[in-house]
């Protein structure tokens, strides 16, 4: 098996998140090494580049490269951690904040050293408010121990870090909407350029990374970039937290070496529930194109393999659907979500996402028209690439994925004015699941 906990290694559930526990696991040794050794920001960034850590928030942008975009020199600069995890299927940052919040604090502090950032914010999804409170406690522990704030570990390096909570807006996970939200406005994404590295929070240079990205940093510094890369496969460095939900026996978060076969992940999660047959998997969060069983079973879990299969690793959120699922209904639910969460500033996304939802909804309800499949393709195609942020793409991509692989099920719906999978079978398949892990 390729289970390889790093960020979650030796964490002890709710009983192991405090500073004393993190220190006992070797925590803050990377920060100490950087400060005591006066490691230059250039060397730090080179180490990050060598690790080929790619952003864990969904886009997979190389982290070392992103850090190198920050302008050099004095002045206010910011770091933001994106813990606004709200892409359906994704729940790994929650486990990091629950079980290892200090890894995020240490990773951000090292990133501040590398980028010259003076202040940081961790933007935490409003729905996990209890973990926002926990993070504030962890910050206080770090400040009290001289690991955060002014003159860290007695050096002349200072970095202030605070928590900011969201309050129910998926779009704030988009990095510039997140900045708007921290500035106290509604979360509408900004036009780019200018990019945040030049003009970010309060108009100052800013780097934004995902929670898991920051939490990986101390481990990379401790083991060295090359060793981290070697845990995964070329161009897909390290370990990755996978959130697996839906029709498996043991849903949850599994940290695996990048490049682990999907079949192994499925086995770790206890296999398909009730011994039923696998139908389809959304491998990277709900905006990633769905893949039918026969394709996903041959994939490995990394950026390159899933992109070659026509989908993406995204946030590493794996939604498993068995043979009881009606694909039209599944897409209907996702389309509803993207329409609900569109911030409304771009017409193609605001109007198009609603249009997509209404078409899928009428097909599901037996009122589909023959021309609807073409219409769906055309509306999706007219959203893609025509909006300020990628929420429009996120609404369009699932539609295209479902149509690409399950077109015949959609056509059947339209022709027969109902579901291919009998309703009682669907209902039985979506029963309340009592997980053995709870």
């Amino acid at each position, binding site marked *: 098996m390729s289970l390889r906990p790093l960020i979650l290694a030796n964490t002890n559930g709710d009983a192991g998140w405090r500073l004393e526990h993190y220190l006992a696991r070797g925590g803050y040794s990377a920060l100490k090494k950087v400060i005591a050794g006066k490691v230059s920001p250039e060397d730090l960034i080179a180490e990050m580049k060598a690790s080929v850590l790619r952003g864990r928030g969904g886009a997979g942008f190389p982290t070392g490269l992103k850090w190198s975009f920050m302008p050099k020199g004095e002045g*206010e600069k910011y770091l933001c951690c994106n813990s606004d995890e*709200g*892409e*359906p*299927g*994704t*729940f790994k*940052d*929650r486990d990091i904040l629950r079980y290892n919040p200090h890894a995020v604090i240490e990773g951000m502090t090292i990133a501040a050293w590398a980028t010259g950032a003076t*202040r940081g*914010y961790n933007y935490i*999804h*409003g*729905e*996990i*408010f*209890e973990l926002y409170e926990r993070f504030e406690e962890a910050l206080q522990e770090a400040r009290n121990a001289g690991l955060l704030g002014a003159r860290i570990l007695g050096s002349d390096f200072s970095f202030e870090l*605070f*928590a*900011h*909570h*969201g*309050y*129910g*807006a*998926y779009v704030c996970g988009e990095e510039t909407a997140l900045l708007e*939200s*921290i*500035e*106290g*406005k*509604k*979360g509408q994404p900004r036009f780019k350029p200018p990019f945040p590295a030049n003009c970010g929070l*309060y108009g100052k240079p800013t780097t934004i990374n995902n929670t898991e990205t920051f939490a990986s940093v101390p481990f990379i510094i401790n083991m060295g970039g090359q060793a981290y890369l070697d845990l995964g496969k070329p161009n897909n460095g390290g370990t990755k937290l996978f*959130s*697996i*939900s*839906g*029709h498996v026996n043991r*849903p949850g*978060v599994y940290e695996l070496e990048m490049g682990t076969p999907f079949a192994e992940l499925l086995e770790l999660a206890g296999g398909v529930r009730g011994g039923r047959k696998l139908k389809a998997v959304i491998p990277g969060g*709900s905006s990633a194109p769905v893949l039918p069983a026969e394709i996903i079973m041959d994939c490995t879990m990394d950026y390159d393999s899933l992109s070659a299969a026509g989908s993406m690793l995204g946030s590493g*959120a794996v*939604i*498993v*659907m068995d043979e009881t699922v009606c694909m039209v209904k*599944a897409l209907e*639910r*996702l389309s509803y*979500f993207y329409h*609900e*969460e569109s*911030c409304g500033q771009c017409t193609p996304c605001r109007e198009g996402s609603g249009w997509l939802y209404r078409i899928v909804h009428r097909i599901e309800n037996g009122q589909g028209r023959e021309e609807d499949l073409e219409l769906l393709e055309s509306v999706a195609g007219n959203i893609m690439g025509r909006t300020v942020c990628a929420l429009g793409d996120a609404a369009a991509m699932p539609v295209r994925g479902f149509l690409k692989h399950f077109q015949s099920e959609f056509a059947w719906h339209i022709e027969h004015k109902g579901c291919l999978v009998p309703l009682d079978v669907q209902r039985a398949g*979506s*029963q*309340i*699941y*009592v*997980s053995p892990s*709870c």
Partner: protein
Amino acid sequence: MLSAEAKQKIDREIAKYPAGQKQSAVMSALRIAQEENAGWLPKEAISEVAAYLEMPEVAVYEVATFYNMYELKPVGRHKITVCTNLPCALSGGVHVAEYLQQKLGIGFNETTPDGKFTLKEGECMGACGDAPVLLHNNHKMCSWMTPEKIDRLLAELESK
């Protein structure tokens, strides 16, 4: 309407942001105002937050309407938000929602006549591995819900 204690809490939030950036505390300030006003934000609360943070009222109102955990109308003493997004729906999210509707005798966005419970449909809470999940009064997450656990939760909340 904002108590001295609430103002103290808001001051702590303001201190997190650089000088001159009080507006950044608006999300916390609205949350704090909502907490001490029975879970919703009347117009006066919005005005007071605006005055306290020296923001135009309309800017505060924009924030209050954009983020869906703020309530602009009265809610029951206990607001229950059920996640029915796809990952949760695969593991019983919809069944849990139906069970709650039947137990409470209300639909989504409705409040029981005694003012005790409001039911809401929510989007992904980032806890899909714990499906079915629900939130109580925005801040308490309840995982792996079953009819038995719902019965216990409702009985406990009934007396509060």
